[in-house]
């Protein structure tokens, strides 16, 4: 167990290192830099002296390894630097944006997990018309582009029916009801594909388990269908499904960029887009670091639950 923990920690550190270094290199390679961006934003033009001055101020005149080292040094002291444009601390900026993104991601995960797994089980048991329906729904769900679906939902539910707000985000602490209403359309947008994905995979995993010999033997021993399906078959089918939920969470990080853009939700995805457009290195690094941490933690959770569910892995 200790060995496993150490291995996980090591591979996580390697991943974080690779991602942050790559980000540094890519940002440095990008045409234009933050100094130009800031000067342009302030006055619309600049002299070479002003430009050099700004570069020195931002620390861009130092070599890349030195810049990275400074960033790492700050990180170890709990700071991720400041936003180059408004001087806000990156940690604070990300802290304020993590709530909206997390709300969308977790809500989508819960909805698609519950609905997807339920649909998957039912279609594995019934087959026939319902099975084909799940096929159609899952194909459709995967085929509809989420940015397009978001537009359609806004047009229908926000503009025509005015049932839900079209844009913006209300923190849970301010008004839980508004928070929930604001989440409905973004979560619906992301869930369409997610439900389809989870339902199809659950159905396949369930069908696989149900056709195994031990299920026949459980029935031969007189166990009820309820116990056979909901206790034994589901427990075994959960093993692959848990892995897929992890994959889904990671892919939802990408989904938030689109959804936050359309629904004007001040989340991490939006931040990532504006930061990369303006070469705001500390902010980009901050977002990349945070996303990678989410991936690493997700993998850990998946790994642990995989071990808990699968006694063969647990033993070794």
């Amino acid at each position: 167990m200790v060995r496993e923990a150490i291995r996980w920690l090591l591979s996580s550190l390697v991943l974080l290192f690779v991602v942050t270094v790559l980000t540094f290199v890519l940002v440095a390679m990008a045409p234009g830099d933050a100094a130009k961006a800031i000067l342009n934003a302030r006055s619309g033009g600049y002299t070479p002296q002003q430009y050099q001055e700004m570069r020195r101020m931002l620390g861009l005149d130092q070599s890349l390894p030195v810049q990275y080292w400074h960033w790492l040094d700050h990180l170890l002291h709990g700071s991720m630097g400041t936003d180059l444009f408004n001087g806000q601390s990156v940690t604070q900026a990300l802290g304020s944006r993590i709530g909206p993104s997390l709300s969308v991601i977790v809500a989508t995960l819960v909805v698609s997990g519950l609905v997807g797994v339920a649909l998957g089980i039912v279609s594995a048991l019934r087959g026939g018309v319902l099975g084909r329906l799940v096929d159609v729904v899952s194909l459709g769900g995967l085929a509809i582009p989420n940015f397009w679906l978001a537009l359609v939902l806004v047009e229908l539910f926000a503009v025509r029916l005015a049932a839900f707000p079209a844009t913006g985000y209300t923190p849970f602490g301010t008004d839980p009801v508004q928070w929930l209403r604001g989440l409905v359309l973004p979560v619906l947008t992301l869930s369409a594909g997610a439900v389809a994905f989870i339902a199809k995979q659950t159905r396949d995993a369930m069908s696989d388990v149900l056709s195994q010999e031990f299920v026949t033997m459980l029935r031969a021993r007189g166990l009820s269908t309820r116990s056979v399906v909901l206790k034994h078959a589901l427990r075994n089918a959960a093993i692959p499904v848990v892995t897929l939920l992890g994959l889904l969470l990671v892919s939802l990080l990408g989904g938030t960029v689109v959804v936050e853009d359309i629904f004007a939700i001040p989340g991490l995805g939006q931040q990532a887009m504006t930061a990369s457009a303006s070469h705001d290195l500390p902010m980009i690094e901050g977002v990349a670091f945070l996303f990678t941490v989410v991936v690493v933690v997700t993998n850990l959770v998946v790994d642990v639950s995989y071990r808990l569910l699968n006694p063969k892995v647990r033993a070794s």
Partner: protein
Amino acid sequence: MTAIITSPETVQETGPAAPAPGRPWRGLLRQPLGLLSAGYLLLLVVVAAAGTLLTPRDPEADDLAHTLSGPSGAHWLGTDRLGRDVFSRLMVGSRPTLLGVAEAVLVFVVLGVALGMVAGFAGGRTDRLIARLGDLVLAVPGIIALLMVLAVFPDNNAAAMIAFGLISSPSLLRVVRAVTMAVRNELYVKAARLSGLSTPAILRRHILPRLAGPVIVQVSLFAASAVLAETALSFLGLATPETQGPSWGNMVGEAASVISVDPWLLVPTGGMLVVTVLALGLLGDTVHDLTVGRARGSAVRPVRRPRPAVRTAVAVAAADVAAAVADGAPTEQGAAAPLLSVRGLTIAFPSPEGEVTVVRGVGFDVARGECVGIVGESGCGKTVTARSLVGLLPGGGRVVAGSVAFDGRDLADPAGREVARLRGSRIGLISQEPMSGLDPSFRVGSQLAEVVRRHHRLTRRQSRARALELLALVELPDPASVARSHPHELSGGMAQRVSIALALAGEPDLLIADEPTTALDVTVQAEILNLLRSLRVRTGMAVVLVTHDWGVLADLCERAVVMYAGEVVEQAPVSDLYHAPRHPYTLALLAANPHLAAVGQELPAIPGTVPPPSAWPAGCHFQPRCGYATEECGAGAIPLVTVAGGHQARCIHVDRLEAAR
């Protein structure tokens, strides 16, 4: 380890009409949806390649007099806010998307297939290294990578899509690696290597063809996601912005900007995307079904609703069955009613060519406490017969005719309610593969306690104690430690003892043992046979033993039912059967037994093979392989005749057989 034909798949396999496998292309022709998808995608490629050559109007021509016109004769899909023809723009707009998808797919396939094959075939350190690398790439948050790449190469669709292919390639790598590994371990690859083929030849001849199906499936799914990714980036204005001409993504973006004025524009743009992604998904599904999905087949569904007794394909056999039911089974079982009485049992399985009868007119009795063996070779229907007694026929099989009476109740009713009540409580089942009969996720003790609680009103604590008692009853040396084990921690012999304990939990009157020792070593087999014998003495339960091993039959059973090609050919007390067989098949099979055959001479083999159920001969099923066969043998159904007390044989040459002995 003898393969027992129970499933219709196996039956089909030996059938003469088995299609040539491994040619998904031909199969594609029979799938209308898949074909339609492939056709659409091909058309799309042509349109994208042709550019403005095929467009009905100039996609860039403004017509400010007709902006946002909606569909009309002149503009099939309407016009946009500058009055440009949407249909033409969609045609031209397919180009950046398709080009981007092609770039992404190229990177995806080259990296995924090459690295996956190397990892899967080389194994060892190379494999671990590549797998680690793949995991690392997979863990990089994709959206961050794309944003970074687009920061370096602003508005560059190709760069973004190549990056997308790169970061997605580990998923293909994993699939290719798994398939390569599986094929590498196939016996036929081992045989090819032992034939002297070089590694490149093995890769080319055996591994690449097997990869084609899974790779096509993965590529079509990936292409679908690449379409979505490319258009999303274009929609967000990160790649292929409007200034670079129309693309599907920026057209949706345009539609969004005028959504409050005219929502119509969302329909053609979004529709185009949905249809394209759908086509890719359907193509993938079709190839999947043609290559891998077929093998999986339909799952066993625990909820089985009663079906009206259809008599279509079986009607032909009805007359034979009637004859078989009439002569039924032994009646000389004494005055006491038998515990189990099977009459005219006929079972059929669905197949592409209609329902195929695999067991016909089987009848036998089992008295209380008696052990009856059902013996026969692969494909004779013995396992199907045994499974039908507990109402658990695999793969859509059903009882088409006949009755199964257990202690006065009819178990063959189509709804299966009666048999469901008796399963586990009065009839137990143990199967051939002890390990795969146990739920891998639960400890032995908890599985056992659950079954105990199902059949007895006990508290949790009491049922746990009873579980330990049962484990002791099956002579496991350390019940407590076995109860704490998971199935994968048991040896084959221990697992079979656990399954016996599970079958005994409801204290059944009848135990159906389906090849209980076939998967075990001889010395372990002897222990399990001893256990079954002592359990019979202690519990007084009757046993139906299904076996192909005449030694096992001799060891445990009092009476035997010999089956051949779906029919009972002989039944008798075991001693009579071994010393005075009355059916040529029994006689020939005993002679072929290496235990009994004379050393130094040819083993007396039976020529030919057991016919599959779809090719049973008329009359006696054994007649084409029989040394005693005459013309009459093929003339019509052969009745089961009583030749001595409790001894029956389905042969019209019983007398000649007797004379020859």
